[in-house]
């Protein structure tokens, strides 16, 4: 099907000139999109149609479901309805939020419901002031909705790739052979009813024990929550490392959500993960051992000492941040593990600095450390700004008031603590 893509740009509050040649009509009668008659073959922008009732400034409200934003639609020009393809993957279009009209940018990773023929791709963006909105589902032919709904869909709620299908096919051949080979001596083993019973009892006991351990362990260590932080892939790690060293070009720092739960890190570069901090910590210990070895100061105990030192500083930093978050009464969705992740990101800069110091001497160390310090400072400020500050303040609007000032100071001090720690933990390694 020949479709051309419209980059839907919300043109803010202006209505613009609307010449209707074809419209997308929702099933409750409201007209959602229209096309320009002068360029029938190419749609460059879409504009929202105005129904007669909707002559008021916030017309977006009436046409879109609460919290939904009209994002990307493709148009087939030779029929009178819109064809669209499911849009999978992040899209960084900068658009006005339809409720508060602040410009926010969205990563689209969730798909609401889309059919092949026509759909408006609407993504839920959590917004606190959803009100006065009429629903629109925008399906022209509901019967076509069920076709091809999951052809090329990557389910963002799935943390890890499902690789169970392929190996299962391969190993199907082996058990047959294994049983055949074992058949001869196995007959004497399995034919004995007592050992049969013992095996069954033993396996049931083992599974019971496993269930017990799982249940109790989940009470102390939130294993399922931890799994979320390790759901990364190579592309994410590469991009995140680049972001930690060079955060200046990145525009959209918001974490995307999928129905109120954060999306796994492999689908969203802004989500914190624990893989990089964990690997960075271990690499830092190894690199510090290497650095001490070049100065002939290496003993095996030093590795343990470095590890516990760095761990202790990490724990103290996380405790300090938790305490200050409690004192300033910030309502944030930052969990402890998030804080550990953010504190662990500085190990990347430290490693780069120490390696540069090994290769190029003290000047190389100081220069790279300075670069990495500034980068991690900017990174932390831009990430924490969206989490700690109130929404309006995060946009850069200056809001006076003691509380917002406190929050600002808190963000700045957390970000400023990172370079200090980076220097403190590495200066003794470069001779």
């Amino acid at each position, binding site marked *: 099907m020949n479709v051309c893509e419209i980059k839907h740009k919300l043109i803010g509050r202006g209505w613009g000139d609307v010449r209707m040649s074809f419209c997308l009509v929702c099933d409750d009668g409201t007209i959602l999109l229209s096309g320009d008659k002068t360029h029938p073959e190419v749609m460059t922008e879409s504009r929202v149609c105005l129904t007669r009732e909707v002559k008021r400034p916030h017309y977006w409200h009436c046409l879109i479901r609460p919290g939904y934003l009209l994002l990307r639609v493709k148009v087939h020009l030779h029929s009178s309805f819109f064809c669209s393809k499911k849009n999978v993957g992040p899209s960084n279009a900068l658009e006005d939020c339809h409720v508060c009209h602040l410009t926010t940018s969205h990563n689209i990773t969730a798909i609401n419901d889309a059919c092949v023929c026509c759909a408006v791709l609407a993504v839920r963006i959590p917004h606190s002031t959803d009100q006065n909105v009429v629903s629109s589902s925008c399906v022209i032919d509901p019967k076509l909705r069920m076709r091809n709904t999951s052809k090329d869909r990557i389910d963002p709620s799935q943390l890890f790739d499902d690789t169970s299908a392929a190996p299962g096919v391969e190993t199907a051949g082996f058990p047959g052979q294994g049983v055949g080979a074992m058949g001869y001596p196995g007959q004497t083993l399995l034919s004995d009813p007592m050992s049969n019973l013992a095996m069954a009892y033993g396996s049931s006991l083992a599974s019971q024990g496993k269930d017990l351990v799982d249940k109790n362990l989940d009470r102390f260590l939130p294993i399922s929550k931890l799994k979320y932080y390790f759901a990364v892939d190579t592309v994410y790690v590469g991009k995140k490392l680049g972001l930690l060293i060079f955060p200046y070009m990145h525009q959209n720092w918001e974490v995307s959500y999928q129905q109120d739960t954060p999306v796994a890190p492999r689908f969203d570069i802004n989500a914190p993960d624990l893989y990089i901090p964990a690997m960075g910590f271990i690499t830092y210990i190894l690199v510090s051992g290497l650095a001490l070895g070049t100065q002939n100061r290496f003993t095996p105990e030093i590795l343990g000492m470095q590890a*516990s*030192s760095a*761990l202790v500083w990490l*724990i103290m930093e996380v405790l300090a941040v938790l305490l200050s978050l409690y004192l*300033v*009464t910030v309502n944030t969705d930052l969990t402890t593990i998030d804080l550990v992740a953010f504190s662990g990101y500085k190990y990347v800069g430290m490693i780069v600095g120490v390696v540069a110091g090994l290769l190029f001497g003290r000047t190389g160390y100081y220069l790279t450390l300075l670069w990495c310090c500034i980068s991690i400072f900017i990174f932390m400020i831009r990430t924490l700004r969206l989490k700690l500050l109130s929404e309006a303040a995060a946009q850069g609007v200056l809001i006076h008031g003691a509380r917002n000032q406190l929050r600002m100071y808190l963000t700045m001090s957390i970000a400023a603590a990172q370079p200090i720690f980076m220097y*403190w933990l590495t200066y003794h390694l470069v001779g």
Partner: protein
Amino acid sequence: MAFTLYSLIQAVILCVNAVAVLHEERFLSKIGWGVDQSIGGFGDEPGIKVQLMNLVRSVRTVMRVPLIAVNSVCIVLLLLFG
């Protein structure tokens, strides 16, 4: 700086002991950090001082009994192993 996990545990125990020793009537009320002075102000901004006072009070309430056990263990270990 050579920190071990054990020194962190020691530091934490000492700090919690310090907080647990602050007596409500004899000391905190005298300097204006008592319980009766923190109630009030039902706005959404408790303020740092009120939060601190709440923190002190909750640490004292919660950690009173476990601290007895932890301190005894610590004393025994230090006597035996130095």
